[in-house]
């Protein structure tokens, strides 16, 4: 058996823009432009980048909530584009998603029993309402909630509790993969820690893999096994977490790490000043997308950058890759 759970090759996602009386396609937002990545079983792979870099789009395209424009997404060796309807249903059970804002991802008119238990009935995991109640109670206990909240509604819970309910809903169908899209960024610091601990425990108990999308580098550093750095829809750098944070190669990764706030007021941090902001994905720069802000940019950066491989200190193999002309 292969260790690979999810394999993405040369993925492109474009969102067309229509304008004029005839609503012709005049341009497109190139959200993802040729991304390769690979998620192993039992792994936590983080996708980091600034807003607008395409990290949420990538997460959604990975489980086919968005149809890719081109490229291949394979789950357990099967291309998602070729799945039959019944196979697609089984894929939907195995790949789940948790979103940033728990309140808007729960239906305000559905009780917690319906929110968590609806998919159980649909996929035929339970036959009767009694069975559904027993199973939902079990799921709620697993995510640290009491089982007697089943008949209450989302607005009666705090943000942290709502996120637990969303995680429970994702967990209900025994998935193999959960895409976590900024799951803790809407929560208070003390609650963030609780949710991260819960996700960690659940991963161990149920042998889950996470595609963990976040902009918070200190959480990524602590939580994930490997990191993909995304900028304007392209992968800038991929490495194991420790390697990436201790030996960042790409100027963008280095600038991101340098921009994170200090851990202590007396810490002296070397900053890499970045001018301006992320360019528009409608008309991204040619070659290296980062060259418009990069302090080391040269004329040659207008050409597509080479993909370089260096030895990763953790795996011992040459699987720390980055796209830059610099050594």
């Amino acid at each position, binding site marked *: 058996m292969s260790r690979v759970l999810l394999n993405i090759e040369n993925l492109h996602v474009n969102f067309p823009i229509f304008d004029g009386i005839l609503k012709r396609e005049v341009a497109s937002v190139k959200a993802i432009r040729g991304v390769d990545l690979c998620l192993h079983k039992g792994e936590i792979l983080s996708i980091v980048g600034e807003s607008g870099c395409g990290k949420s789009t990538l997460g959604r395209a990975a489980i086919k909530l968005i149809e890719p424009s081109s490229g291949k997404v394979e789950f357990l060796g099967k291309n998602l584009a070729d799945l039959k309807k019944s196979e697609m249903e089984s894929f939907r059970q195995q790949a789940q998603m948790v979103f940033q804002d728990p309140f808007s991802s729960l239906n305000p008119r559905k009780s917690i029993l319906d929110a968590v238990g609806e998919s159980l009935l649909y996929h035929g995991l339970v036959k009767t309402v009694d069975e559904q109640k027993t199973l939902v109670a079990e799921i709620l206990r697993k995510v640290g909630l009491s089982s007697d909240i089943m008949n209450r509604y989302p607005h009666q819970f705090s943000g942290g509790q709502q996120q637990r309910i969303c995680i429970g809903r994702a967990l209900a169908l025994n998935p193999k993969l959960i895409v976590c899209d900024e799951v803790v960024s809407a929560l208070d610091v003390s609650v963030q820690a609780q949710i991260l601990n819960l996700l960690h425990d659940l991963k161990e108990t149920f042998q889950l893999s996470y595609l963990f999308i976040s902009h918070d580098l200190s959480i990524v550093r602590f939580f994930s096994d490997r990191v993909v750095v995304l900028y304007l829809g392209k992968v800038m750098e991929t490495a194991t977490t420790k390697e990436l944070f201790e030996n960042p190669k790409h100027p963008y990764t280095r600038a991101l790490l340098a921009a994170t706030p200090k851990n202590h*007021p007396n810490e002296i941090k070397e900053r890499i000043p970045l001018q301006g902001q992320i360019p528009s994905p409608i008309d991204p720069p040619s070659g290296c997308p980062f060259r418009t802000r990069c302090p080391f940019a040269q004329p040659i950066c207008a050409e597509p950058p080479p993909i370089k491989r260096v030895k990763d200190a953790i795996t011992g193999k040459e699987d720390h890759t980055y796209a830059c002309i610099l050594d």
Partner: protein
Amino acid sequence: MKDEQVLDERILIVNQLNTKLKIADKYYSVVEDLSFELIKGKTLSIVGESGCGKTFTALSIMRLHSNPPVLPSTGEVIYKGQNLLQISENEMRKIRGGKIAMIFQDPSSALNPVYTIGDQLLESVALHRGLYDDEAYECVLNALNEVHIASPAARLDDYPHQLSGGMKQRIMIAMALIGQPDILIADEPTTALDVTIQLQVLELIRHLQQKNKMALLLITHDMGVVAEMADEVIVMYASNKVEAATVNQIFDKMGHPYTLGLFQSRPNDTSDKGYLKAIKGSVPSLTNYPTGCRFSPRCPFVMERCKQQIIPNFDIGDHHLVKCLLHDGTILSQEKLKEHPLI
């Protein structure tokens, strides 16, 4: 005792500030007995989680909250010899946005979407500087240059939706600076921004603060921003000030279990892989505060008397105030303190 020079540099003195909220005919305190001072050129940071009263503190100083449901604040906010809570609304309007300016968390909801940036900045110039026409235009361009907006003249005809979040926050800062403020209140100024933009905005605020000798009241939930910016720190929990100290005291020998919990909730280089020391439970609701110490239901060091009495502030050295019975010097609390070497 603080020396004469420091006393002269005090620009705002907040004394026993209390703000109450009326919900269903009952009154609840959102800010309780809060006292602090702002010093020229220095930064005071108020840290806490949502609902702890940190934004209400800022709104109370500015008299910006709607009444009802919020009652007028009591206590003293002394600026240049007058109590801002007592002066008339007309006098307050001259100070608000001028000598005491404020920037908010979400710049897109703080700017008016139907007016251009230029219109909004010119209004502020007319109001706080009394300048019109060419002079006003000049003043606006200067302000935009100061916040490093590229080609400012072209930006004046833009509407807020045409600008990015970082640009909008710079416009807000420019607007705040137009009145040449003595005090800048920044309520989570970078929470909505990306880290690279956050750094740009923080450095801009710091640079302008030093140049104009402004006092900065920085409200945030992020200890990283505190480490970057603050000189003094107040930690708030459930409407109360639970700890007040210099930034080094807070980072090196935090005295309150809640402050410790805040630090341990954030991953750092020494955190065990995969597991954080989270604070159990969640923030109590305003309508249902526990008696005694409001943190006691979540506190790992809780003692029986924490739940029974009003907790005084203890000075644990060099004006480092902690509202916690662990520092009352009794044998039981001494032993509890030993359980945690950091406190």
